[in-house]
């Protein structure tokens, strides 16, 4: 069963009329709202565009100013002197001028620490990396003790981190084992004949040894030759040895003019440009124009 709860004075025609008026009002309101939205948003957009246009010259001026600095440094017209290239040439000139005295200075330091018993016959050095030098010396010493002392003396060179040695011929006397002829173990030099223990045999051996040995000036090692420029080598019973010292803090790497002056491939980082306006979102990764203006 249906119940009609409407008051009796309300008719269906009245309801339709009210709905029509309400709908018309609603449509009119919608039109007004749509128009207002368009007008306000368009005005805001125009204002924003105008503001961007107004700011553009200022931003462009900043970019141009930054590029001017790049142009000055890069030597592009009207600044025709490329400062980095010029700077490189100056550094090369300074490096060349600074390098020539380095070897004499290094050798001066080394010579101060050469003991008097080590007679140098050759001295040279070569770079060992960017900051170290390997000094190689050839010279003459007499005894095994000097061979040991020399290493300690060379390690006193400022910056010396390692020493190597080679070439010493040990001629020091040593005590031999007992044999039939020598029941005492008389010390001898390497290669020397054994010394008999009986007095008469020992006397004969000493006489024979003296007769077989050097009786006059032997003339070895360029001694006795009248040439002041001839290198004097090892004397009898001396050894010519070679020692190397690794010295840190002595950079002797040579500047290479030809390689240094070769133009460097590629240029410096580009200055950027103005930010681009867009109807789309800003491009990811786009570098702002004066982004490279960090103080150097």
């Amino acid at each position, binding site marked *: 069963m249906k119940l009609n709860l409407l008051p009796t004075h309300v008719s*269906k025609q009245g*309801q*339709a009329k*009210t*709905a029509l008026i309400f*709908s*018309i009002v609603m*449509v009119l309101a*919608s039109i007004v709202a*749509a*128009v207002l939205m*368009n007008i306000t*948003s*368009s005005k805001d957009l125009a204002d*924003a*565009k105008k503001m961007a246009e107004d*700011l553009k010259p200022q931003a462009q001026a900043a970019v141009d100013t*930054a590029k*001017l*600095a790049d142009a000055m*440094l890069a*030597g592009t017209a009207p*600044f*025709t*002197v*490329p*400062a980095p*290239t*010029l*700077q490189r040439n*100056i550094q*090369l000139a300074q490096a*060349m*001028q600074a*390098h*020539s005295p380095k*070897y*004499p200075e290094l*050798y001066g330091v080394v010579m101060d620490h050469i003991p008097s018993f080590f*007679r140098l*016959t050759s001295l*040279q050095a070569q770079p060992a990396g960017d900051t170290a030098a390997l000094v190689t010396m050839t010279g003459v010493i007499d005894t095994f003790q000097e061979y040991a002392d020399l290493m300690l003396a060379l390690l006193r060179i400022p910056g010396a981190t390692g020493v190597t040695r080679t070439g010493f011929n040990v001629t020091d006397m040593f005590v031999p084992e007992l044999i039939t002829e020598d029941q005492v173990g008389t010390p001898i030099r390497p290669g020397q004949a054994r010394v008999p223990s009986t007095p008469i045999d020992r006397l004969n051996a000493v006489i024979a040894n003296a007769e077989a040995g050097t009786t006059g000036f032997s003339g070895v090692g360029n001694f006795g030759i009248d040439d002041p*420029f*001839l*290198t*004097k080598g090892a004397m009898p019973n001396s050894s010519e040895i070679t020692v190397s010292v690794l010295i840190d803090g002595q950079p002797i790497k*040579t500047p290479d003019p030809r390689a240094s*002056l*070769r133009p460097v491939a590629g240029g410096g980082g580009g200055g950027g440009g*103005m*930010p681009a306006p867009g*109807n*789309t*979102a*800003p491009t990811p990764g786009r570098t*702002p124009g*004066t982004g490279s*203006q960090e*103080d*150097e």
Partner: protein
Amino acid sequence: MKLSSLTIFLIGLSISLIILAAGLFGFFGAEGTGFLPNRAEIAMQKEYIQQLKDEANKMPQALRRVEKAKALVEEVGANWQQVVATNTPPPGMIDLDVPAWQLTKDARGFRNNVQRAVNAQVKVGGVTVISGPFVPFTSESATSIVANDFNYPALGFPVAIWDFGTVTVRGTFEQISANVSGWKDMPNFLAVADGLQITGTSPMLTATYNLSMVAFIRGNQIFPPVPEGAGGGGTAPGGGGMPGPGRAPGG
């Protein structure tokens, strides 16, 4: 046909929604219409404006940078002037702004002057020269002399480079040290002595070392290449101005 009140209301509501949607989304396609598209573009414009402001705000920084660049250029220029004044061949020793045929002749004279300078320098310290540096003869080819002997345009500016190889001198340690160190003070050129080896018995020693030398050539112009050879007769490509470093400001 009579419509019910609900139907009338729904029709009015639909029309209103369509109008509002058109206002919001800009269905009509015309640019600048539609609330939401406009808002989106305004947002992008604001971002763009911010970027422009950021750029504009960098003006003081850019000005400082220009000042620094200017100062650096001036400082570098002043330093270079010192090098030019003391370590480059004086004006008149060689001029590249002459036809290359003339240059082949002039370069011989330049070479001789360089040899004289080297001969004077290699005796510094009072050493006896056993084997001195020899300055090689310059090219007789007009088409290649600038490229071969003055490394232009390969190095970007005209510069003569000599690798003399081994020099041998004799003397005391002090004389040899003075001789090798003396190359740093060689006038009008840049020289570097390297790889010093000393042999012999003191006091008379023999020293060997390697020597390289550089001469930045002064001038403002390089004469254009001459039309010599099989391709001659055509228009010679322009020589043009000498770039910065070789130009030796004030030279």
